[in-house]
């Protein structure tokens, strides 16, 4: 491919000297001792053994304010504290009386890049709209947060929830409205956060 | 005690089996192996004699034979590889470069 003559001729004309490299880090030369493998091997062993013994001792004598030196989180027993920005499973916000805030405007359905949301709108007797059915296909949801971002009613937010989402049947991932609804006081933190970051002052 | 004759008969048996292999097989590699077998049979008789004569010269012979076998194996296998490259076969009947 590359060995035609035109190419070779052209390669010679390239302005290699004009490129002026800013900083050249020399391809490292090894001294004789480093060439003999042994020194570097021992140095490597020293580093890994330092980690080994440090961690071994770290179990017995943990550093201050910590249980152990190792950064491992013992997951089911210990849980990381999620930052407010974290986008977990989308949830519908339920008012204090248990009714949903959603008015089935369909914006989230429209914006969802994965088409994970499907809404069937309905009307209450007083004329207000509500979602007759609101289905979220968690098996498609990519947790992008667009639904929360476009919702004009603070009706859908990304909760902190990430546990218990795994299933052994794919059908179980189809969340209905009842499963999605969460009382507002549990989600207040996130709602406040959403209000703050999408507030006018941020624009 | 085992008599010397038993060792010798065993050696002879192995030698003949090796010889049969050399005569009848056409695969150069197996022929080599049969030759190795024959050498081993000879080794056995040497060691047996040396024990029964109470003289260790036989061991030296075995030592030398092993050296020769190693050398033979190296060169022989190299020849086989070279032949296989050219002829794509290790059948000795197909190898008749020397026939002119």
């Amino acid at each position, binding site marked *: 491919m590359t060995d035609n003559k035109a190419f070779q001729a052209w390669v010679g004309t390239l302005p290699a000297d004009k490129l002026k490299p800013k900083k050249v880090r020399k391809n490292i030369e090894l001294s004789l001792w480093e060439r003999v493998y*042994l020194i570097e*091997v021992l140095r*490597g*062993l020293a*580093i*890994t*053994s330092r*980690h*080994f013994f440090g*961690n*071994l001792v770290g179990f017995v004598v943990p550093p201050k304010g910590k249980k152990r030196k*190792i*950064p*491992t989180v*013992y997951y089911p027993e210990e849980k990381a504290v999620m930052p407010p920005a974290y986008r977990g499973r989308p949830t519908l916000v339920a008012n204090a009386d248990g009714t949903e805030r959603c008015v089935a405007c369909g914006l989230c359905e429209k914006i969802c890049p994965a088409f994970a949301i499907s809404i069937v709108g309905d009307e209450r007797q007083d004329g207000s709209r509500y979602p007759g059915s609101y289905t979220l296909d968690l098996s498609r949801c990519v947790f992008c947060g667009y639904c929360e971002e476009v919702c004009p009613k603070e009706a859908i937010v990304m909760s902190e929830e990430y546990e218990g989402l795994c299933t052994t049947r794919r059908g179980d991932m189809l969340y209905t409205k009842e499963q999605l609804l969460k009382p507002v006081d549990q989600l207040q933190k996130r709602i406040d956060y959403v209000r703050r970051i999408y507030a006018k002052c941020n624009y | 005690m085992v008599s010397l004759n038993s060792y010798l008969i065993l050696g002879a048996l192995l030698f003949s089996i090796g010889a049969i292999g050399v005569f009848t097989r056409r695969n150069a590699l197996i022929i080599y192996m049969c030759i190795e077998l024959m050498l081993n049979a000879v080794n056995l008789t040497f060691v047996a004699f040396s024990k029964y004569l109470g003289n260790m010269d036989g061991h030296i012979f075995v030592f030398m034979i092993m050296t020769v076998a190693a050398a033979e194996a190296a060169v022989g296998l190299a020849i086989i590889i070279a032949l296989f490259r050219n002829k794509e076969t290790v059948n000795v009947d197909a190898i008749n470069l020397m026939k002119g």
Partner: protein
Amino acid sequence: MIADLTETIVKILFIFSINVGFYAPILGWVERKQSALMQDRVGANRANIFNFKIIGLFHPIADAVKVLTKEDFIPEGADKFFHTLAPFLSLTPAIVTFAVIPFGGAYELWGHPVKLVIADLNVGMLFIFAFASLSTYGVVLGGWSSNNNWSLLGGLRASAQMLSYEVAMGLTLIGVFMVYGSLRLTDIGMIQENFFRWGIFMQPLGFVLFFTCAIAENKRAPFDQPEAESELVAGYFTEYSSMKFVMFWMGEFLEIVTISGIVTTLFFGAWHLPFVTDQMLVSFFAGAGPNGAALLAMLVNVVVFFAKVSFFIWLMMTIRWTLPRFRYDQVMRLGWKMLLPLALINIFITGIVLLV
């Protein structure tokens, strides 16, 4: 006769149980746990029986039982006989080799002389060599009989590598034999009663060379080209599953133990504590009566020996998890162009020193 037989059987049982019963399963755990700690992780710790977890020691049991109940697979077009034979061939030498490694001194128990070694051969080291060279077959046959290109490449690499490093290893040990004047491992052990005659002081270069060659013989990283995961999937045992796959593994682990045993015997004073002779031990325990003293001294010997072995196992594991692996041609170059000449130089220097 009966006493001899009992003695041998007891010793065999002891070594067998310590190797197959203790080291083989525990090394799987050690490897995981040690690598985990080196890598700032915790490692397996959740398998529990009745809520006892004991730092993950149940995990090897779980592994073993699971592997036993896994489907045993023989690939299509493979040579069934050799495919089944290969794991055994790679496991046996590793177990057998320990027979000639002494793990304690010679004592007298109830008027019967007892040497803490299963078979005290006068060609002990050659015996080890012989069986080490036989372990090649398991690998080569495993690679060949799997009817898989990756396995075949792994088998080819393994055979060439093991053959090459055997040469260097043999030459390295010649220096050791020259120093000690014996091939019998118990003799070598006895000589090292004197701390200043430990192999590490008399053959420092020999130790480094031997250790390197031994790791290469065992196909452990950084010499694990035959099973290099990123190149050859799993190398020669790609097509193995279930128990046979674990036998390859066990073979590898037992070889680690054996190598550590050999290194301890040849270079690190065998069963001796520095500056402590067996006589001193016996006289130290003299209060326990002659037999009791001998038994206690034996116990100390065995503990010291296996402590040293464990240290080398630790060292080998650390090396395995620290270093990147060589490229295949670099392995060969290292073996033939570096270790072999160095081994020859070592012999030469040793010879001169001995003569002068």
